[in-house]
């Protein structure tokens, strides 16, 4: 039942905030903040309850479930289930939910109630995506989170918001419909083979498909997730949407919505179609590496700060995709860590850029220089998260990228590993350029603005703490992911054959007590 509450609380809070917002903007903000915090606490309770169980090898996989008949005529069930992967992403969701409420505290002054309705409903939709194990329910939640996101961009966004919002909606909707066809085909094929109409993830796993069909269906799913991820060349909606969205929208887009794409790859594409995915892996990995380099180079070329951060997402999520398709333990651990660390560091960067824009009314790097003198605390925070983004050892992103590279190398994809490693180098370029151009140098424009206020400090400190924690002691994350990882690997033959030769990993303490 607790899983249901995780969805229902933000839904109800959204409606309450809407009504409250008509009388008091502050009430709407507090209602949303409390709802996100309650969900966060519920998540912590789940984590402490199942943490040790998730660490052990899985017995059945799900540690907590809700399953009701929904539409019996079609065999649709309202089935939510939790495992380590969903738990970790839920924690990220709730944390960023709290942060985005705080980030919009002063930025959003019009239509506050409706803004928080949308914000809370996006969170509910994302929680639904991470928990749904009935494919119909998954698609339902997948589509549902689009609408409030669309409103967030279209109503509270910046200059070019309508174009960006419509582009975002159309890209994701089209790819989502392709996934719907794939889901339905799988459903009918499964019925044809077994005589049972079901959308259950566990039942559909291992449906016997001809190689040709499997490839087509896999592509249906893959495109939907690749657009969300976003994978080169489907990334073009992302810079627009991220740039035009209000701060909270950018945080949620980068921190969470992109993760639903990676989650879908992990949860659905590879387990449901292992053979087809293995066949397709080289293409996916090459595109991932192109995305890494391309995103980093484009980020280097931007002068708009939000666009810069947006393109870094293309690069970082390229690592995640690479890790997922390398499909060995290191690569998968790395992909997961990359998802979480990217969510936090990019979310924080968007928040800082949003705060800068709130104060200076510009996002142009050329107009911002020498800010360090006037806002040292914010500049320091920006430096910290930029370092995180460029993969400085000791911060979470480094662990993710390092493990992905290691896993890719292990899979005998040395060429790809080398090119991807160049992406890490390129990330140094954009991160340093970002800091130098915006914060260093002479304060030629005579900026004199307010430094971080306590509310903003409260929002940034947890992210700093978590990012350091992920960087120096990531083992709890890997432990929680352990059972899911074992389960995922049982479903599949590894898409890329892994050698069993001696490995440098055995020398590193990172693995902890993992087999």
């Amino acid at each position, binding site marked *: 039942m607790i899983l249901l509450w995780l969805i229902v609380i933000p839904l109800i809070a959204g409606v309450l905030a809407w009504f409250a917002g008509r009388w008091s903007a502050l009430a709407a903000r507090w209602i949303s903040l409390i709802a996100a915090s309650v969900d966060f606490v519920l998540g912590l309770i789940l984590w402490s309850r199942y943490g040790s169980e998730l660490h052990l090898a899985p017995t059945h996989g799900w540690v907590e479930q809700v399953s009701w008949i*929904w*539409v*019996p*005529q*079609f065999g649709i069930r309202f089935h939510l289930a939790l495992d380590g992967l969903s738990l970790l992403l839920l924690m990220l969701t709730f944390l960023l939910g709290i942060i985005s409420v705080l980030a919009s505290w002063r930025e959003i*002054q*019009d*239509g506050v109630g*409706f803004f928080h309705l949308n914000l809370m409903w996006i969170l509910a939709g994302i929680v639904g995506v991470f928990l749904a194990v009935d494919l*119909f329910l998954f698609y*339902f*939640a997948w*589509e*549902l989170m*689009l*609408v409030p996101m*669309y*409103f967030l961009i*279209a*109503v*509270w966004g910046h200059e070019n918001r*309508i174009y960006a*919002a*419509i582009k975002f*909606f*159309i890209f994701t*909707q*089209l790819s989502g*419909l*392709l996934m*719907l*066809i794939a889901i*339905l*085909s799988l*459903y*009918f094929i499964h019925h044809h083979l077994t005589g049972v109409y079901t959308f259950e993830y566990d039942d559909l796993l291992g449906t016997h498909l001809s190689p040709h069909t499997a490839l087509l269906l896999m592509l249906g799913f893959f495109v939907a997730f690749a657009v969300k991820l976003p994978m080169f060349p489907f990334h073009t909606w992302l810079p627009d949407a991220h740039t035009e969205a209000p701060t909270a929208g950018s945080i949620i887009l980068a921190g969470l919505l992109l993760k639903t794409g990676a989650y879908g790859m992990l949860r659905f594409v590879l387990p449901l179609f292992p053979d087809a995915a293995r066949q397709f892996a080289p293409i996916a990995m090459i595109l991932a590496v192109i995305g890494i380099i391309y995103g980093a180079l484009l980020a280097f070329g931007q002068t708009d700060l939000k666009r810069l951060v947006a393109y870094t997402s293309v690069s970082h999520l390229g690592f995640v995709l690479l890790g997922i398709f390398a499909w060995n333990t290191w690569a998968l651990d790395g992909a997961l860590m990359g998802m979480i660390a990217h969510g936090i560091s990019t979310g924080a960067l968007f928040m800082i850029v949003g705060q800068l824009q709130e104060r200076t009314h510009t996002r142009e790097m050329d107009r911002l220089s020498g800010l360090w003198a006037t806002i040292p605390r914010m500049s320091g925070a920006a430096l910290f998260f930029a370092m995180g983004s460029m993969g400085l050892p000791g911060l979470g992103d480094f662990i993710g990228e390092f493990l992905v590279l290691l896993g890719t190398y292990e899979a005998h994809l040395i060429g790809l590993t080398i090119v991807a490693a160049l992406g890490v180098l390129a990330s140094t370029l954009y991160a340093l350029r970002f800091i130098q151009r915006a914060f260093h140098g002479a304060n030629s424009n005579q900026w004199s603005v307010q430094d971080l206020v306590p509310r903003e400090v409260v929002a940034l400190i947890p992210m700093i703490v978590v990012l350091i924690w992920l960087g120096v002691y990531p083992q709890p994350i890997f432990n929680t992911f352990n059972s899911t990882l074992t389960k995922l690997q049982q479903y599949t033959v590894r898409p890329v054959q892994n050698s069993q030769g001696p490995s440098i990993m055995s020398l590193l303490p990172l693995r902890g007590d993992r087999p």
Partner: protein
Amino acid sequence: MNVTDLFTLLPLLILGGAAIVVMIVVAIHRSHILTLTLTLIGLALAFASLWWIAPEAPRQVTSLLVIDRYAIFYTGLVIAATFAVALLCYGYFERHPGNPEELYILLLLAALGSAVLVASSHFISFFLGLEILSVSLYAMNAYIRAWSLPLEAGIKYLILAASSAAFLLFGMALVYAELGTMDFAKIRELVTASPDLNRAVLLAGTALIITGFGFKLALVPFHLWTPDIYEGAPAPVTAFVATVSKGAMFALLLRYFYWSGTHHFGAVFLVFTIIAIASMIAGNILAMLQTNVKRILAYSSIAHMGYVLVAFQAGGQLAVQAVTFYLVAYFITIIGAFGVITMISDGDRDADSIEDYRGLFWRRPALAAVFTAMLLSLAGIPVTAGFVGKFYVISAGASSAIWLLVFVLIVTSVFGLYYYLRILVALYSGLAHEEAHAASGAAMVSSSSLAPALSISGGVVLAVLTILLVWVGVYPATLLNIIHSTVGLL
């Protein structure tokens, strides 16, 4: 014809009787509210009588009409939709000078015609039902004589509907000349029994019949009347044309082509495939070019009929249920959407420009929220009935592996998003921080801005429709059960 036969025709008799009663009462005493009340009572009685006659179903009443569960379900749908439209009409015509009472007579007659259509199993009843419906619609379209657009709409509809009826009649005549019967079921027997019939004449007849259907359903290339009628007719009348008239026609399309077995002809299947693809593409693309909300909905209705044809093409039980489900969702959505248009129109003109909707959310949040729900349903977004409808249609298509149609549906429905989103953008624009940008434009608009007095009856209708929309969207099992146990038996 015996007493039981008459008894099973009770819904039709009540509808016809109600029209006569209303007519006499209007002649004696003109009162809008009294007329509305009588109309609603008539409709409610007709609806209630469906339960009395249900045990008798299925029953062939003469060779013209068949009262089976399929007919009962669709008659119920027609009556319920007419009920909602009547309530919307009250608020709308209350604001207009002139006599609104006769409209309700026409409304009842149009409902009667639709009910005959869904129950007909014979060319004669097909044609009679169609004409009762069409003739009422001519007058309803042109009901506001003081405005030029409704008159234009009425004349256009008259000419085009009359000529399409001529095509239809000629088609029926050809089929009759070839087979010697006008009964749908007998056509099937003859077609299957003697495959050496002269197919050319039969096909030509069928093609002309398709023309008749195509006109009423506004399928490409018979769609040219649609945008003008939608734009010109008074908003609640447009709601009626868009739902009851098309829904009844589609119900008949299913019955005719499945019963007569002509759907299995390769050529007929091909023609429907082409029509469906053309409708989806043309409807969606042309809608993108419009700036008038009623015209957008007109073109989108062309596309939606194309989607329903995809399910029709799938064939079999799943198709009948998918079509029916989609139509129910479409009825709820379109009456809701035109309900909102009705509500914010005033005595001077209909609210049909996108400008009329700019910032509606910040002025009238409830109305804008209802309109949002309806538009999202048309776009097929979850939590609305339209989503389940689209899901059902796509699954019907996928189960029959008609991939071409399914892919066209998906790609064109994404185009469709664009224009629904454009209206949505307008609804939510105009926050304080953009007022500065829009100030110059606003001054221009304010000269013609609408000042509607919101009607209670319309508000109730919209509230009920929204609840239904969300209920069907979130928990479709109830409606699926009803559809399964009724139209499943076609």
